[in-house]
């Protein structure tokens, strides 16, 4: 299978990855090779097969609705790229 430059540009945008035109071209050729491998799946008849999303056939556990975590704002913010007054700073998003 061969992907187009537009396909790859769209995926890079969805994945939030900045890529130069040269990087898009490299990615296009490598992804086309990988999808060549993946295409093998299409020949398999899977009519009536239930999709398997998980290794164990168990239901999601419920827990009691009580507080289990305590506030560690300072510890968590100590490793953030940019904080001020207890808030995480990002570029302005609202005019």
């Amino acid at each position: 299978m061969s992907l187009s430059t537009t396909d790859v540009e769209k995926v890079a945008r969805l994945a939030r990855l900045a890529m130069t035109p040269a990087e898009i071209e490299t990615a296009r050729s490598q992804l086309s090779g990988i999808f060549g491998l993946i295409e093998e799946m299409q020949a398999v008849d899977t009519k009536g097969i239930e999709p398997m999303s998980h290794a164990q056939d168990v239901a999601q556990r419920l827990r009691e609705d009580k507080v289990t975590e305590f506030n560690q704002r300072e510890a968590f913010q100590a490793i953030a790229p940019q904080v001020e007054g207890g808030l995480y700073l990002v570029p302005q998003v609202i005019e």
Partner: protein
Amino acid sequence: MIESSLSQMGAALRAKKISSVELTQLYLDRIAQLNPELNAYITTRPEATLAQAKAADARIAAGTAEALTGIPFGQKDIFCAKDWLTTCGSKMLHNFVSPYDAHVISQFNNAGAVNLGKTNMDEFAMGSSNETSHYGSVKNPWDKARVPGGSSGGTASAIAARLCAAATGTDTGGSIRQPAALCGISGLKPTYGVVSRYGMIAFASSLDQAGPMGRNAEDLALMLNTMAGFDERDSTSLQRDKEDYARDLNKPLNGLRIGIPKEFFAEGLGSDVAKAVEAAIAEYKKMGAVIVDISLPNTRLSIPVYYVLAPAEASSNLSRFDGVRYGYRAPEYTDLADMYEKSRAQGFGAEVQRRIMIGTYVLSHGYYDAYYLQAQKIRRLIAQDFVEAYKHCDVIMGPTSPSTAFKLGEKGDDPVQMYLSDIYTIAVNLAGLPGMSIPCGFGDNNMPVGLQIIGNYFDEARMLNVAHQYQLATDWHSRAPQGI
């Protein structure tokens, strides 16, 4: 002392023949001497390590030591450890000093074990050669021009070079078993859900499983006793009774039915690897095991299925790295979207970006049914192959990897070639079964070969028994690389 088993080390510590501080210093000295070339560790903190050893000695003196108290271990850099730099092999986390402990780390800490350092790995565990690490590739102690395998390559190299008593790994598609095979050590990936994933940086959550790596099966049993157990902080952790994984080590193998899947001995398997694995199977026959020919017909499909499902889950898991709360942020950007895109493009390496792209594509509008859903359906067919096989046998055996360790840089440019080398290990993760690799000889260029043992769900104690009996009859597991 460095050739002793964990139980021998534990006994020596408790008998005060050696202190934990002395034993730990011995390994720290070896790391200082050999790690600059092998690059098996990303981070060491000798002061913190020795403080733990001192505390272990106090615990031994107080008579409250457990099996692993005072023994020095390496920890794969995928496990968050409080106050330790935890990089996951990525530039994205180059400055991430974890504010908390992963469940696996707290289990070792509670047992009084000593943390020697964080071992190198493929970036976000994506790789089969340890060459995708941002912190440089790891060398195989058996031949420093060759890879140690991946993604737990730092752990495997450190164990083979005796830079720790044993260490932890994680396995999403073979990342414990393949490096164990390539470095001539033992490694076990437990049944999915046996070891908590809490604090283990996520790659593909429905496949990721932590496990022990060491020099022999007996050591793995002791480590698994510490690592396994229910943890409510991992929603897929299984609520099961605590078991002693060493309980069956000494059972005879008379009558054991070993399934040999014909698909594991087909085209693509190196003749040197085939020879060593066949000799190991012959050894099991001598011990009274019965060989059963079986088929796992969908083995070939495990690669395309894995390379849809694992990247899909990874693209979702890795969306958390946005340059806002922790990790790398690009130095220059124009607005919020530009900050996300530049931080991620600069923080992630090429292989990680490739897998995020694959995952994003297969989950995107219009392709979901053709790729993701189809892969999940074939995943069930692959799991059913094993259910059918275990009607006729107790364990399954075959090679762990189609070849011995390849040269650094040899498969660098072609991701497809690298992906194909995971052929014998991936199906086990897709099915959620336990799998292990033990050394069973040497192939071309005198490089180690691994025998893979695949068990039925929750059959770890039996697999360890099967491995241990082989290790009583052979000495492949106790060989050390030259100059070590």
